[in-house]
């Protein structure tokens, strides 16, 4: 069982225009930067992205906004990107804002065969409009639907040929959960190792969830807010 493909270009080559794609990362931390660049180069359009954020101008998903490949974003926070703002205000880009925890849980449900669940989050707010409300133990909850996608593009620290993945520090974020919720999950890894090298007690994403593994050629890992202490 060898899920390694030779390049990011090869890994994304079959993504059609109109696809729904989950993209891991929080801000610019843990984003699949090589796969995003490969999608830009491959050129599919009218894409729907499920991603907590929308990158910054010219980096992360901002790359695909610049090339107008994105039709819709499902996100919790999108505020670091002038091109995003321009396209949104002009009506070129559709945006569905979802509370961050509801977004994570909808993806988790989608991957876990749960078509819908109830959450206290957002009750009585705009995000509950049009959704079923039900009381449990006298408290109100909003029904939210599970979310799946055609593809997930994620970034891991180490991965093996079976698709087992581990993430580093807060670069996990949405990557692990998105791996479970797509028909085809493509993982780019900093280090490619052999099956058996990763401790089976401590695998974040079992290989069953991953269809393709790419050893990323390089990682810029741009920092949004470099904050240091003055000693």
């Amino acid at each position: 069982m060898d899920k390694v493909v030779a390049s990011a270009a090869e890994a994304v080559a079959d993504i059609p225009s109109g696809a729904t794609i989950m993209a891991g990362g929080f801000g610019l931390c843990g984003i699949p930067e090589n796969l995003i660049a490969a999608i830009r180069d491959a050129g599919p359009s009218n894409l729907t992205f499920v991603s907590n954020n929308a990158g910054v101008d010219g980096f992360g998903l901002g790359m695909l906004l610049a090339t107008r490949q994105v039709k819709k974003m499902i996100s919790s926070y999108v505020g670091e990107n002038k091109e995003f703002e321009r396209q949104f205000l002009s009506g070129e880009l559709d945006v569905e804002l979802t509370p961050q925890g509801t977004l994570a849980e909808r993806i988790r449900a989608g991957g876990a065969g749960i078509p819908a669940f109830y959450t206290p989050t957002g009750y009585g707010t705009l995000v509950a409009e049009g959704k079923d409300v039900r009381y449990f133990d006298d408290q109100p909850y909003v029904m939210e639907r599970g979310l799946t996608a055609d593809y997930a593009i994620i970034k891991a620290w180490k991965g093996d040929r079976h698709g087992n993945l581990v993430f580093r520090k807060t670069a996990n974020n949405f990557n692990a959960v998105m791996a479970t919720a797509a028909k085809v999950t493509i993982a780019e890894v900093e280090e490619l190792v052999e099956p058996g090298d990763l401790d089976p007690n401590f695998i974040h994403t079992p290989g069953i969830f991953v269809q393709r593994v790419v050893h990323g050629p390089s990682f810029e890992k741009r920092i949004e807010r470099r904050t240091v202490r003055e000693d």
Partner: protein
Amino acid sequence: MSREENRLRIVRRAARELQDGFYVNLGIGIPTMVANHVPDGIDIVLQSENGLLGIGPFPSEAEVDADLINAGKQTVTIQDGGSFFGSHDSFAMIRGGHINLAILGAMQVSATGDLANWMIPGKMVKGMGGAMDLVAGVKKIIVVMDHTSKHGDPKFLPECSLPLTGTNVVDMIITNLGVFRRADHDSPFQLIELAPGVSEEDIANSTTAKYEVALEKA
């Protein structure tokens, strides 16, 4: 008092609500400053909703790590005994009531504890991030804010006019003028403290929400 002094007093007052053993989530901006004023003898663990328990101080230049950030996207460090986890597990933790306390900023708070802090109609909407999940799941919500807006409009109101982050979620309000608290989500807010040099009348003049007065001796 200067704006800086007012903020510092709000932050210090909020820090007095920290209890030993608490797991705490601090909102972006002024709430984050509470971390620098934890009282002596109080041991708390800070949670960051992007997947971190045990936030440490900002890193030295040499320690900066692009893979280690907080929910404000600032580079941070992790304390001994901390842990990393995915966003789904992080919000399960938040929604499940495992965080003792969150301290958040606000645009408006209503007399019944509704909170508005994510959206101003007509302005570019950036999104609610994790704020709606925090107010829905965390056991105790403290709001820290200026008592009135830049234009002098009251922010503690009968009802919020801005889109809500959550309904009936705020437990305590700490402003530059005073402190309000309520016993539970069925009770009205009570004014329990006045800032130095502030009178009950000053508060009344800057507040349109109904509240009870139950000042505590300092």
